[in-house]
């Protein structure tokens, strides 16, 4: 158990170290997150649809699309110079490889979210309140399960010739439950509704995280075995 944890942390640290050196994922996903928000601002008749009305939806769409950009990179990185084979040759369990890759992905998606969040507040005139912490918390919670399924699928699509095309098609249907739950919870939080109305959505997110992290970690060894 401890060796699995140590190996997973080493793999995550490796991925994050690569990221801090070239910043490709953060730069592309960060710029992408801003662009998605701008598209929403300009794709609406300015006087007629208020920004605050669109705000929760934009947050979740931005989150899902920017997350896909991060995930796409995770295994394409390993494909360069067949780096994945080095990891597979190392005496590291496949389970540890999954948790390591997942952790790095989750950290990066949360980082992109953290970057996009204040900009979203700014661009969409979201009134500052303590419930924003709740909205951010829901997004982080959604990111955990989202990257679970995403890590599993990205490992597969990276092995095909159409990785960038296949991952969104394969992954987005699986993101609808957490996005639905997250967006519905956020809307209620932003409307300052009582916590009871958010609890149900929160529960779905937690169940989704547990179910998909467990499934992905169990299936991942099949994806990478030779």
């Amino acid at each position, binding site marked *: 158990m401890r060796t699995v944890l140590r190996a997973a942390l080493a793999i995550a640290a490796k991925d994050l170290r690569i990221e801090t050196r070239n910043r490709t994922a953060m730069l592309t996903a960060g710029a992408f997150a801003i662009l998605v928000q701008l598209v929403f601002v300009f794709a609406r008749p300015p006087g007629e649809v208020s920004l605050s009305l669109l705000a929760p939806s934009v947050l979740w769409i931005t989150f899902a699309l920017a997350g896909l950009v991060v995930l796409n990179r995770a295994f394409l990185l390993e494909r360069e110079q067949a780096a994945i084979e080095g990891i597979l040759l190392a005496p590291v369990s496949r389970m540890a490889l999954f948790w390591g890759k997942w952790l790095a992905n989750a950290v990066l998606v949360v980082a992109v979210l953290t970057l996009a969040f204040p900009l979203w507040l700014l661009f969409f005139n979201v009134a500052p309140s303590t419930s924003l912490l709740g909205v951010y918390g829901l997004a982080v919670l959604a990111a955990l399960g989202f990257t679970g399924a995403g890590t599993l699928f990205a490992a597969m699509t990276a092995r095909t010739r159409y990785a960038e095309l296949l991952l969104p098609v394969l992954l987005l*249907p699986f993101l609808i439950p957490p996005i*639905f739950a997250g967006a519905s919870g956020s809307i209620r939080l932003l409307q300052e509704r009582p916590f009871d109305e958010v609890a149900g959505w929160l529960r779905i997110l937690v169940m989704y995280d547990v179910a998909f992290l467990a499934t992905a970690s169990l299936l991942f060894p099949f994806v990478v075995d030779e």
Partner: protein
Amino acid sequence: MLDAAAADRAITRGRIVTLLGVAALAGLYVMAVLYTPTERFQGLVQKIFYVHPPAAYAMQLAFVMTGIASALYLWLRDARLDAFAEASAEVGMWMGAIVVITGPIWGRPVWGTWWEWEPRLTFTVIELLVFAGYFALRSAMREPAERAKFAAVVGVTALVLVPFNHLTVYLFASQHPTPVVVGTKKPELPPEMLRAFLTGFATFTVLYLGFAMQRYGIGVRRLLEETADAA
């Protein structure tokens, strides 16, 4: 493991089962038109319900069978299980197509709109999209064993999504008619309607089996051709 003669047998048997299913479907239509009473509020359009829920059930059955065959494939690595998982998924796609086509035909007169973002209809669409991804991934892969493995992983993951699918039905406000057959302890449908309804479910089970058997045989044949080409 793969056997051309067995594949041909599966196709022949599948054809016979499909013919039985088609005959049952004709019987179901006759039953719906002549035997069942016309629903007082919805009128004739209600008769679509002898087809719509059975097709939804057949889609779910097909996708669950794909999930089970996928899990078994990961365990046993038998190419026949992959061929069956693919066959079942494809039949499921068509059953889902029947659901999303008949739904709006009923919805237009009864709800007043062609399309309603109603949970069960929405999630039928999501299931269809999940399996669209399944087939997209399959089409992007050449090597049969790897394709089977990856497809099986998606098939199992799709099975995990199903409860989330159903969960939402009960959690979200729904415009969809609540189930009267399964939901209550005592069926409240008139006996003629209930009989036709249950005949619908039986018919679609037979149709599913017939189509899946034929498609399985075709899948095995294709796999044999692929391995012959590779050799």
